[in-house]
């Protein structure tokens, strides 16, 4: 049961730069800048690639190939935790279908 789709909260007001596997994100509405962990960056990048949004299951599929995430069993949990953090930063938002 994953009725929730996640997407960028303000795609036109979000700018980012990626270096290696880390990114910094600038949120024009709040004026804040964030340095995301490699995993948080991967979640955000996946959402950047899918402007209409992804649910957790789709995000898990998109991130499964990451070599640095050995524990596949916890991947969904880690994605949810990353989404919660990104939502607190007002970078992503959930849309209930």
């Amino acid at each position: 049961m994953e009725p929730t789709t996640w997407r960028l909260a303000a795609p036109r007001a979000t700018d980012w730069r990626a270096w290696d596997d880390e990114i910094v994100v600038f949120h024009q509405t709040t004026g804040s800048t964030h340095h995301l962990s490699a995993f948080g960056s991967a979640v955000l990048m996946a959402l950047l690639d899918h402007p209409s949004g992804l649910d957790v299951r789709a995000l898990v599929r998109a991130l499964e190939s990451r070599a640095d995430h050995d524990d596949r069993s916890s991947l969904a949990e880690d994605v949810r935790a990353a989404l919660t953090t990104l939502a607190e930063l007002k970078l992503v938002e959930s849309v209930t279908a």
Partner: protein
Amino acid sequence: MIVASLPPGELRRRLRSSGLRVRLGPVAASIRSAFPVVASSMALHYGEHEVVEDDEFADFHVRVDAPFGVRRIVRRQAVFDFDGQVPFKPLPAAHGFALLEWGLNWCVSAHCHQFLMIHAAVVERGGRALVLPAPPGSGKSTLCAALVGRGWRLLSDELALVDLERVELVPIPRPISLKNDSIAAIGRFWPAASIGEPVYETVKGTIAHVAPPPPSVRSSGETARPAWIVLPQFRAGDELSLVPLSRAATFMQLVEAAFNYSVLGHRGFQVLASLVSSCACFRFNYGGDLGAAVRCFDEQLAMKG
């Protein structure tokens, strides 16, 4: 005309009357002061700077003089006045030149939003700029002076001015401010350095200024391409190490060190990202061996070809 070529007594006369106007890289300042220590220090540290004539524009009109009122009577004090504003508390009159230097830093950092401004030293060699952002006490100025003493061009000891269009470093060569033990350390390492009289018991301890080398002042119209961002940290006795730092982590350090990142908004993000993208980024620890420290950066330069 440069300050050193003013006729005898003219520097003091201008400081006492309409103001001595000097070019400081991309800005001009009109400076007034009746304090002899300001006149002698201006002669020592700003001799190579271009004199701006009275009918030309000055970005900042500043004055270091005795305060009005009871403070003038109680003891000799100096206040920094900027267009009628007094942004700092008075200091002892003997600190007059240091107060002027701090005041000029403030003028630039609070007003020159045509640049992204970072609290950092900047030196250049072979057309490549090394940016040294760091908080006070990190050994930034000592390292900067050591590099300049071995031939690197001084762009600034305090203010990295990043051109918003070209993302190049704009020089604003002014005296290097040394504190406490670093004064003697640079005196030994760079015997030819022109170091002013120490000023004791300032809020930062004992300080002394090193005059910018004349070639650095003469080439203050030449911007430099950014090549390295290095966060220095001095700890007495530490082994020297130059360790790569991720660009994202470096970016966030520069956000903290920038004076006007927030003011510039999205433009600030874009310019800072371009700056970081164009540089190799490191954390640098050193423990007092200035010769080894300079060699380390000379080797980096050699590797860049």
